[in-house]
């Protein structure tokens, strides 16, 4: 018997943070303008020590003006989507739950597009719209996925997939009729893309991300019990309705946050929590932090590949995650059917 300790969580999360740092340094190196690893490390150290005048203006522009903001965006979006996926898998009691597969990302995207039409110049309106869109879609899919008062796994997935297709059609309709007014285009909303810097300061988005992750983490012990059955969790003293409400709001916020700045990037919420489960077990006290960091790693890697594999052209990052995520989805689905 070796129960989970806070020490183990800190250790594993620390190791993953080191891996994330390594991936970030490599991602800083990759691109059209060549910079050696040594130069990157020196530049980062100089910036950290406040000796900016010793950094060449070209290096500064490429690293701090172009690549690092995009990497920071990838970390934010990846962390949010992976944690949302882990949360929704417990909330909807379905291992295949993912914000993209269930149409929640499409709901967020549609919400964001509509909010841009209604109040195009208000700060944070895209984020608010995306949150409302994600929350409304989650509630819809949740209620459509019930049969006889119980969540039914195949019904839930079908409800999600149909919602996703309906919402994608609505996005295309809106994107076509409003072309010119929306600066981002349909590929951004349907597939996800990190090339466009967000219109809102990243530190506010990071603030919301960290607070939401904190909220969802308070339910980690409860989620472990809910995974063995809601009734059982209730018998063991879990306030199931409160936990579900926290995960529902937090999951919708994380999805809305990610989609508002990165579009509907798919499969991160499926790929990452399952990989982390295979590596470190199913305990949510460990799964939430490892998913958040793992999601960041995966999306930094995916985005770096998206902007370099067919350079000078860029792929949407959602295409990269779908290439890796769709086979994993099929594998998990078939394993479950057996």
């Amino acid at each position: 018997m070796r129960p989970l300790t806070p020490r183990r969580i800190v250790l594993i999360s620390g190791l993953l943070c080191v891996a994330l740092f390594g991936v970030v340094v490599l991602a800083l190196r990759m691109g059209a303008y060549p910079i050696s690893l040594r130069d990157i490390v020196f530049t980062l150290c100089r910036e950290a020590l406040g000796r900016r005048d010793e950094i060449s203006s070209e290096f500064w522009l490429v690293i701090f003006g172009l690549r690092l903001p995009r990497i920071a965006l990838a970390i934010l979006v990846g962390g949010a989507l992976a944690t949302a996926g882990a949360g929704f898998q417990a909330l909807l009691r379905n291992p295949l739950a993912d914000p993209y597969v269930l149409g929640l990302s499409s709901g967020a995207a549609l919400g964001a597009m509509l909010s841009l039409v209604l109040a195009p110049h208000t700060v944070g309106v895209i984020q608010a719209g995306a949150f409302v869109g994600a929350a409304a879609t989650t509630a819809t899919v949740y209620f459509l996925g019930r049969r006889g008062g119980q969540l039914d796994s195949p019904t839930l997935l079908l409800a999600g997939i149909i919602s996703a297709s309906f919402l994608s059609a609505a996005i295309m309709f809106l994107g076509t009729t409003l072309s010119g007014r929306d600066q981002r285009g349909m590929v951004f909303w349907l597939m996800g893309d990190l090339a466009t810097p967000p219109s809102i300061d990243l530190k506010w988005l990071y603030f919301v991300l960290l607070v939401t992750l904190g909220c969802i983490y308070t339910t980690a012990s409860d989620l472990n019990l809910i995974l063995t059955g809601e009734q059982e969790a209730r018998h063991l003293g879990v306030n199931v309705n409160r936990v579900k409400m926290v995960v529902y709001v937090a999951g919708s916020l994380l999805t809305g946050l990610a989609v508002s700045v990165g579009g509907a990037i798919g499969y991160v919420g499926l790929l990452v929590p399952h990989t982390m489960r295979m590596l470190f077990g199913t305990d949510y006290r460990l799964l939430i932090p490892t998913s958040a960091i793992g999601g960041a790693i995966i999306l930094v890697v995916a985005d770096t590949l998206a902007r370099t594999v067919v350079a000078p052209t860029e792929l949407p990052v959602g295409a990269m995650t779908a290439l890796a995520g769709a086979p994993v989805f099929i594998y998990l689905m078939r394993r479950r059917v057996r």
Partner: protein
Amino acid sequence: MSAGPGNGTSLSQKPVPFAANPGVRLKVEQASYAYQATDRSAPKFTLGPASFEAEQRELVAILGPNASGKSTLLKLLAGLLKPLSGRVELDGSEVSALHLRTRAQRIALVQQESELLFPLRVWEYVLQGRYPYGRRLRFESEEDCLLAGNALAQVGADALRDRWMDRLSGGEKQRVILARALAQQPALLLLDEPTQHLDIGGKVELLRRLRRMADENRYTVIVVTHELNLAAEFADRIVLLHKGKSLRIGTPGEVYERQLLEEVFEAPLEVELRTSGRPRVILGSSH
């Protein structure tokens, strides 16, 4: 032990002080329940007022045909349902009014296990029984591990500790589920048809184990079951339900009457008294 609707009471009446009988742990006073017609997930069903008491070290069996209200009564005892009228008290406190965690520290309910979403080791599962004793985000202490280990040993599942839950046989799983309930260190142990997926050997072993636990750990054990003979052999008290009414409450000898059982279970039955003084039910010839 009080049976039937004779000692009527209503919600407006003050509760009878529990101190009157220090041996009584569970007290059910005219507790009734009705599923609302709008509740689509449940059948339209009413459980008439039921009254009985159970003491420490007692094993009570709730018997009755399907849809007689056994599970509803068990949910009332567990505090998962609030009685429409009457009261269910454990050590003087109304169970449905207890705080969720306090209730889980005193009442353990073993139901048919639901499907696990992700694989779990046996020890992880049993440790979940310690959840009611921690704060919201809790990490298990050495004491928790010790108690979980004891619980596993008590059900003879020590060797299963590192196995995966989804690789256990029906009997093994039943023992592990029981161990999780024991890890809760409850005063009242409730079991909903625990013998359902067990072979005859497993059934006898489980009932024998429950009997021993009631005696040694001073639990009050309430079992919902269809096993008339096992209930007659191991239970101190029987609550016989039929169509939502508690027909008779008493010792197996008092409840097991041929005519009554035949009426309730709609089958030709015969009751004979064994040398131990406990009755035995056998299938009679059809009329």
